[in-house]
C-alpha cells in the first residue's frame, strides 16, 4: 500500500535535492525561490477567484474558491465526471489525473495550484472517434473492472506507468499501481491488463 513511484517527489528524491543541507534549509530555499518568482506574496480568496485550467487540451475558465480541489473543480464545475472522489485524502487513487506527465491525487491538489499545467483526466483518454486507449482496451479485454468506480484512477495510473515504462515488468506494474485501491477485488486482472497494455504499446 505504498505510493506509486511516479507520484510527486519521493522523500529520497527530496533529500537528494536538498543535498547536504538540513530539511529546514531546503524548505527556506524553496520558499525564497517562490518569492523571487512572484516578487510579492499575494493573498487569494476566500471568495471566488478566476481560475483557468487546461484540461485534456481544452481551456476551462472557472470562478471558484481557492480551496476547491482540482477534482471538484473538474467534476462539479466542468462536468468532467470520469475521475472519482473516494477517500478524499490521497490514499485510494480513484481521482488520479496526470498533470504535466506525472500522476497526482486530484482530491488533494488545489485547482488554483495547477493553472498553466497540462491536466489529463480519464474523460480525455479515448480518441475523438471513440477508439479506446490501449490501456482502456486491455481493461475491457481482461475484465479488469467490476463496479468500475476505481477504474478511472487505475486506468490513469496505468497510462502513466506505460508512458514511463513501455512494456513494464510485473514489479514495475505492481509498484506503479500500489497507490490505488479497488474494493470489488479486480487486482489480478488489473495487473494482467497493465501488462497486456504494455505489450500492445510495445507492438505498436
Amino acid at each position, binding site marked *: 500500500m505504498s505510493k506509486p513511484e511516479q507520484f510527486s517527489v519521493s522523500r529520497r528524491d527530496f533529500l537528494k535535492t536538498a543535498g547536504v543541507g538540513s530539511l529546514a534549509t531546503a524548505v527556506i530555499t524553496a520558499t525564497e525561490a517562490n518569492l523571487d518568482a512572484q516578487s510579492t506574496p499575494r493573498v487569494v480568496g476566500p471568495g471566488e477567484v478566476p481560475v483557468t485550467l487546461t484540461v485534456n487540451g481544452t481551456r476551462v475558465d472557472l470562478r471558484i474558491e481557492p480551496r476547491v480541489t482540482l477534482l471538484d473543480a473538474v467534476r462539479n464545475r466542468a462536468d468532467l465526471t470520469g475521475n472519482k472522489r473516494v477517500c478524499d485524502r490521497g490514499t485510494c487513487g480513484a481521482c488520479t489525473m496526470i498533470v504535466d506527465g506525472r500522476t497526482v491525487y486530484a482530491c488533494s491538489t488545489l485547482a488554483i495550484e495547477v493553472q498553466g499545467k497540462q491536466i489529463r483526466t480519464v474523460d480525455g483518454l479515448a480518441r475523438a472517434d471513440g477508439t479506446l486507449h490501449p490501456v482502456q482496451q486491455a481493461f475491457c479485454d481482461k475484465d479488469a473492472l467490476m463496479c468500475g468506480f476505481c477504474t478511472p484512477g487505475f486506468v490513469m495510473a496505468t497510462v502513466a506507468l506505460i508512458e514511463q515504462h513501455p512494456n513494464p515488468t510485473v514489479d514495475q506494474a505492481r509498484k506503479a499501481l500500489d497507490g490505488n485501491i479497488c*474494493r*470489488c477485488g479486480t487486482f*489480478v486482472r488489473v495487473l494482467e491488463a497493465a501488462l497486456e497494455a504494455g505489450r500492445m504499446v510495445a507492438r505498436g
Partner: protein
Amino acid sequence: MADPRYAWPANPTLLSTRVKRLDGPDKVTGRARYTYDINRPGMIYGAMVRSPHPHARIVSIDASAAEKAPGFRTAVTAKEPGARVLYQGDPVAAVAADTEEHARDAARLVKVEYERLPHLSSEAAAMAADAPLVFPSGNTRKGNADETGNLDAGFKAAAHVVEATYSTHVITHVCLETHGAVCEWDGDTLTAWVSTQGVHQCAQGFAQALQIPQTNVRVITQYMGGGFGSKFAPDLQGILCAKLARQAQAPVKLMLDRKEEHLDTGNRPSAFAKIRAGVDSSGRLTAFDAQSWGTGGAGAGAGFPLPYIYDFPNRKRQHTDVFINAGQQRAMRAPGHPQGCFLTEILMDELADRVRMDPVAFRVKNLPPAGPNAMWAQYFEQGAKQFGWDRRHATGDPNPGPIKTGMGVSAHRWGGAGRGSQAHVDIASDGSVVVKCGTQDIGTGTRTIVAMVAAETFGLPVSAVKAEIGDTRYPFSGGSGGSTTAASVTPAIRVTSGKALDELFMKVAPTLGVEWTDLAAENARIVVKGNPAKSVSWKDACKVIGTEPISVDGRWEDGLSSSGTSGVQFAEAQVDVETGIVRVTRILALQDCGLIVDRLTAESQAYGGVVAAINFALFEDRLLDRGTGQMVNPNMEMYLLAGMSDIPKIDIVLNNMPERGVIGIGEPPTVSTASAIANAVRNATGATIRSLPLHPHKVLAALDRERAGGTL
C-alpha cells in the same frame, strides 16, 4: 414450471463462454454516469449534521448561524430536541447550499446542544454486570437454544475435547461510491438517482417515507460503485435529500463523505463463540457445545451459522445479540458465513491435530452427505492435488529462519436461489431487440448476462441486443442481494425472450410453409429444424412484424435456476515470526454456481470474493475507542485495505453444472478464504490464533503464548 421449450439449450453458443462486459467501454472512459456523477441544471448540494457523541440526548438544535452562511438554501431535521442519538454519526439534520463546500460549511454551523449519556463501545462492556442500561429492552438479547442429538453422550464418546473462545471483528463495507442520491421533483413526482442495489425497493422506501404514491417515484441506477449488501434502501440520507429538494425547489445531490460512510452505512457484525467440541479416536466428530454472541451495533442482531458445514451429530448452540453504541450492521457479502466459517474451521484444524489426521482427510470424514449442492469431497480431493497439498508439513514449519510457510484449507456453502423477477422484450420490424428488466448492475455484470441470455435465445450476437436495466420504469426485479440476481433475472429473460421468439415464429412460419413449432433461431437466422437449407435471415424474418412490434412481458419461472452452492479454498501463507507480518502467497478457490452464464464475469466475482476475504483476514478492522466511543480509523489510510502488492497468486476453478440451472456466485467465494489463511498461519507458526484479523501484534502475542506453554 417453465415450458420445456424455454429450457437452457444443451449446446449453447454464448452461455458459459467468456463475454466481455458490455459496459466496460463506458466505465474505462469515464462516460458511465454514477449517482455521484449526475449533475442536473440548477442542482444544489446537501450535507448532513451528525452526532459526534456515541450516546446523548439532543437538548436543542439551532440553525440560525447556518442560515446566514454563504450559499445556504434550506435545512431539515432528522431528530427533534429530546430525542436520543445512539452512535457517533447518528443523523440529526441536513442542510442544502449552492456548492458542496458551502453545504459542508453550513452543516458545521448548525449548533446542536447535547446532554451526554453513558455509552457502550465493546461487547464486553455491554455484557458486564454493572453496565449502564443503554438500550431500554436490555443491552443483550438472548435467543433460543438450538439443540440436536444427545450432548452428554457425544462428549462421553469423545477421545479428545477442545475448549476455547473464537472471534471475528467488525468491518465496514467501504463502498467506493459512498451512499447518496440526487433528488429532483416535478410537482409531486420524484426522480431519484440513487447508489443502490435495489431500484424498486428504493422507490417503495421513498414513497412510504414521503407519503406519496409509489407510482410517483422513479429511481434510476445506471451504474453504482459497490454496495456489498449495504445499499438496499433510500436510507435517511436519501429521504433527507428528497425533503431538501422539495423545500428548496431545486435538484439536490447529497453524497456521504468517507467518514460518514464508515460510521452510518452498515458493517459486518462481530462474532464470538465459547466452544467445546469432541472427536472420537477414529477422527469422527461427536459433540459441539457453543455459547455465541456478537454485536450488530445499536439495536441490530448479529446472527451467524454455527457449527458450519461439518457434521457434529450431537450439538447445542445458544446465541446472544449484544448492543453497543455504534452504527448498525447491514448485510455484508455472505452475511454470517465468514464468521461461522472461521469459528468452525480453526477448531477443525485443532481437532484434526488431536487425532493426528491430515486436515483434508479429517474434513472429508466429517462432511454431510454429498450432493449437487454439497460437492466438498470432490473439491477437497481435486484442490489438494492442484495445490500441492502433499507438500504440506505438519503444524509448525520445521525450517529454520524467521519466515515460516504454511498451508490451510476451508470449505463453505451458500444459497443463491432465484425468485420473482419480471422482464419485457420488444422485437421491431427492423430486427432490433430491446430487453427491459428493473434489476441493477452492482458490478457483477448483470447488464451483460441480460443481453447474453436474450441473444442466446434469439440466435443473435450479444451486440444485437439492447439491455435496459437500472430504472423503476422497467419491470419489477428484486434487490441485488443474497447472490440471487443471476438466478432471478436470467430465467425471466429466457422465458420472456422465448415467448417473443414464439410470436415471431408464428408470423414467419407461413412464409416458410411450416408449422411455427418447426422453427429454431440460430446464427442470426430463423431455420426449419432438420432442414437447414430452408431458412430466412433474422432481419428478413422480422420484416413480417409490421409497424406494431412484438412486445412481450414475462417473469421468472421455476426450473431454470436452483439453490445451493459449495466451494473449497486452499491458502498458502508466509509468516515473519520476528515482525508478525503475514503474507498470503497463493490461494486456490474451487467453486460451483450451477450453469455458468458468463465465465469471464463469474471468475471476476470469485477473484473479488477472495480479495475481500484477504482484507477481512489481514487488514481491515473497525476500531472503536472505548473511552470516547469514537471510531479511530474512519478513513482509508488507517482503515487498511489490500493494494496491488498484497495480492497473492489466485487460481479460480469454476465447476460448470448446467443441469442445475443458474445459481448466484457473488457471495460464496468470499466465505472461506480468511479461514484458510488463518489455518495456513497456524500451520506455518504452530501457534493457534483464534481471532481475526491476523494483525502482526496478535501473531506475535500468539507466538509468545506458544513459547510460554502453548496456545493449544
